């Protein structure tokens, strides 16, 4: 068994990076490996927006990540500074920045790059998408 940390840099829509990351994560878990966390960085933070509303015949990657996380008790972490720059805010971020609303789903926890590095150190392999 190996410990993986998955980094998602690709946006929720318009590139296939996040989809490939999702499939890779599913595959790793189905083979009995461990995923220490999925870290969303750069445009990847858009995956955590609960406002994502694709057409009914399209993939809803936000929903897919949330479901996978619930099913496998996965740790989904957003880089908070990358998220704030791109308009993805938790309830607390919205309050602190005096914004009317928040949009980050509760499945995704806001964290820092420090968590990424600590998890890299504790994992066997980092895979970036």
């Amino acid at each position, binding site marked *: 068994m190996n410990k993986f940390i998955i980094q998602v840099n690709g946006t929720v829509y318009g590139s296939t990076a996040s989809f490939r990351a999702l499939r890779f994560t599913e595959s790793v878990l189905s083979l009995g490996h461990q995923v220490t966390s999925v870290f969303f960085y*750069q445009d990847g933070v858009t995956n955590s927006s609960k406002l994502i509303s694709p057409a009914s015949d399209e993939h809803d990657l936000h929903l897919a990540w949330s479901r996978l996380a619930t099913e496998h008790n996965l740790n989904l972490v957003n880089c908070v500074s*990358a998220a704030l720059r791109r308009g993805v805010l938790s309830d607390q971020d919205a309050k602190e920045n005096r914004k009317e609303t928040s949009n980050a789903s509760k499945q995704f926890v806001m964290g820092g*790059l420090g968590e*990424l*590095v600590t998890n*890299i150190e504790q994992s066997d392999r980092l895979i*970036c998408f």
Partner: protein
Amino acid sequence: MKKICVIFRHSPIGNASNREGLDFAMLSASFEQEVSIVFTDEAVMHLLAEQQPELVGSKDYLSTFKALSLYDIETVLVCQESAKQFGLSANDFNFEAEMASTHQIQTLIQQANEVVVY
């Protein structure tokens, strides 16, 4: 402690990816990882002096590269093939970096535990 090699591939202008890669590199170094950096393709333009990223709406993160040695990031390589394509010589470098052959870069990548591309 892991050996982390951060590779920059994009031009400093028109892409925020580099800035986020730099944040990652510096944070990894401050978390006691052994970090090395490679500039290749259009990213070799990071080495040029007197750029004004503010004029195109970017933050001036370029001057931060001068601080790499303060973070104990000692291995900073510039792909000599890419540098040649962009007409850069080592004299043009605005911060401490070393011209490297593809072979040297290959060796660095092989020795790294993780390779992250920005």
